[in-house]
């Protein structure tokens, strides 16, 4: 028989154990940073962020382990070191992102103003930049045409690739099953995902050049339009849209489709009225990811839409610029040579800031839309 306390008085296992105060890891971390900074200063004679960071990381791990092992025991010490390593890795992963954002905001923000946003490079001369660098005039030029180009080309790419991508995903999930066409499409989509963007650009240009040759021979270069660029971006976008939509559609429970079929609802209507509304928020986030992926493409735009200096609203005729090609062009071929090239560089940074802001706004928008459209489970 198993009885309690009176027969087993000697086995008094305690449920409590020694624990370091909650603030200890933070104190150790701050102390490690100070000590590391001190060592860096004494050893190198100056303050170095890299040396301090590496030293602080190592010191922190050792100190946490030593202190915790001495006071709390080995198991908790290992746990604390693991926590420290994981959190440091997270901080490390954030460093490139934050420093990139910081650089873009500080450099781009300094140059950005309404003039840049509302003017094009029409009538831009090197002398204007030289005057700016000499402090005799404000920063001339702008990238209104590139913003318009980015928006138009990306919109056109969306118009082409969202229907194609979403419908292809619906085919794969709802109709293909395990048939050969479905497998072939899946394979081709996988291959398309890996196509280098410049190849997509060359493909679109070659395609439209061939068509242009047939329609009006000897019209070289007429194929360089915003629409050709949009087709090139679609080649990059469609596989992403298909993949993301496919995954989301597979998440819709089979139960819901069966419930709808059992009510005598035809398949197409089940898809349109039940499956798509249930998954629309996920599909939209997938689409946004695809847009964010292509909006920053440079290479396919260069070979398909060229570099426009001025505003062009027409997707079907003439060259167009987008923000990425504008940045590329400004950095590579400044308006003014020599010292005044810095003016082009400043415009490029401002354009980069606008581009990053566009992508961020898109992401935020997708989150808001996803939240609004997501199925509600409220009580």
């Amino acid at each position, binding site marked *: 028989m198993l009885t309690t306390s009176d027969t087993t008085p000697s086995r008094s296992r305690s449920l409590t154990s020694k624990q370091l105060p909650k603030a200890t890891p933070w104190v150790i971390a701050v102390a490690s940073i100070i000590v590391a900074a001190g060592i860096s200063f004494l050893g190198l004679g100056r303050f170095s962020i890299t040396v301090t960071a590496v030293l602080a990381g190592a010191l922190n791990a050792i100190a946490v382990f030593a202190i915790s092992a001495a006071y709390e025991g080995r198991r908790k010490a290992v746990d604390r070191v693991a926590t420290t390593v994981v959190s440091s890795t997270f901080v490390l992963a954030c460093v490139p992102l934050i420093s990139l954002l910081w650089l873009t905001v500080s450099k781009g923000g300094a140059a950005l103003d309404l003039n840049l946003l509302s003017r094009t490079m029409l009538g831009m001369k090197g002398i204007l930049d030289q005057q700016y660098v000499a402090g005799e005039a404000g920063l001339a030029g702008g990238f209104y045409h590139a913003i318009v180009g980015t928006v138009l080309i990306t919109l056109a790419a969306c118009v082409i690739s969202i229907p194609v991508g979403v419908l292809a995903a619906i085919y794969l999930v709802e109709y293909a*099953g*395990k048939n050969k066409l479905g497998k072939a499409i899946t394979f081709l989509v996988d291959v398309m995902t890996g196509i280098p963007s410049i190849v997509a650009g060359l493909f679109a240009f070659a395609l439209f050049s061939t068509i242009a040759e047939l329609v009006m021979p000897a019209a070289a270069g007429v194929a360089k339009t915003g629409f050709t660029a949009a087709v090139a971006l679609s080649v990059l976008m469609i596989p992403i849209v298909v993949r993301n939509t496919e995954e989301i559609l597979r998440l819709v*429970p*089979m*139960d*819901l*489709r*069966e*419930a*709808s*079929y*059992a*009510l*005598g*609802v*035809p398949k197409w*209507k*089940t898809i349109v*009225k*039940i499956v798509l*509304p*249930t998954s629309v928020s996920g599909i939209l986030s997938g689409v946004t990811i695809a847009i964010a992926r292509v909006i920053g493409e440079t290479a396919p735009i260069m070979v398909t839409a060229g570099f426009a200096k001025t505003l062009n609203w027409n997707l079907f005729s003439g060259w167009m610029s987008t923000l990425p090609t504008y940045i590329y062009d400004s950095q590579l071929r400044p308006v003014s040579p020599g010292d005044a090239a810095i003016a082009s560089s400043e415009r490029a940074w401002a354009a980069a800031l606008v581009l990053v802001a566009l992508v961020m706004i898109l992401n935020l928008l997708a989150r808001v839309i996803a939240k609004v459209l997501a*199925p*509600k*489970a*409220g*009580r």
Partner: protein
Amino acid sequence: MSKQIDIKDLNIYYGDFQAVEGVEMQIKPRSVTAFIGPSGCGKSTVLRTLNRMHEVIPGASVRGEVLMDGSDIYGAGVDPVNVRREVGMVFQRANPFPTMSIKENVLAGVRLNNKRLSKAEADDLTERALRGANLWNEVKDRLNLPGSGLSGGQQQRLCIARAIAVEPEVLLMDEPCSALDPISTLAIEDLINDLKDKYTVVIVTHNMQQAARVSDKTAFFNIAGTGKPGKLIEFNDTSVIFSNPEKEETENYISGRFG
């Protein structure tokens, strides 16, 4: 508004695998028929062939006849969509449409089948269907809230309301209470008793007490072993099955001496 179902030599296949063999059965209108048997014996499969829902699974096929008031639902030119409008189904797991409110869920079948409803008709149908499913009093004040906010038992009754809103002839229920607590189960069993005044009800259940409580006739299915097709062992009045079955296999199963 209910139909007789005659099943004649029904064989059901998943690809090359024969899941069910040679089922013969006559299901009377305005009655409750229970399918019992061990897991994997094919009772759900048979149930799903009664409204051609098994076809949703790729590779599934059927040989034999299922006659509804004399017309074969597997005959040439029969549209499964039309069959399903006559034969409603309630599933094991409650599956209200997550994007729709309680009211929209009830009206889903009618609206998605292209019928335009005036507001008064819609309100009337919602109330009738929810009353029919014994849910009206619990949800009448929150008809516009999402159906997924209800409790499990309420969700299942919402699914029943949704199924009877399209006014089918036959109602199939695939283990409708297996995920519910005894009180919700009781509510649904009471409901099944009411439903048989208007519909032909076929219910699959693992709960033999439930079969004994709600059904007029009981079909016992069994399987000889893994990989073998399921068979209908005995089909008789529920009172006979549970008191004095003809076959020893049935006796063993219902008395717990199975295997």
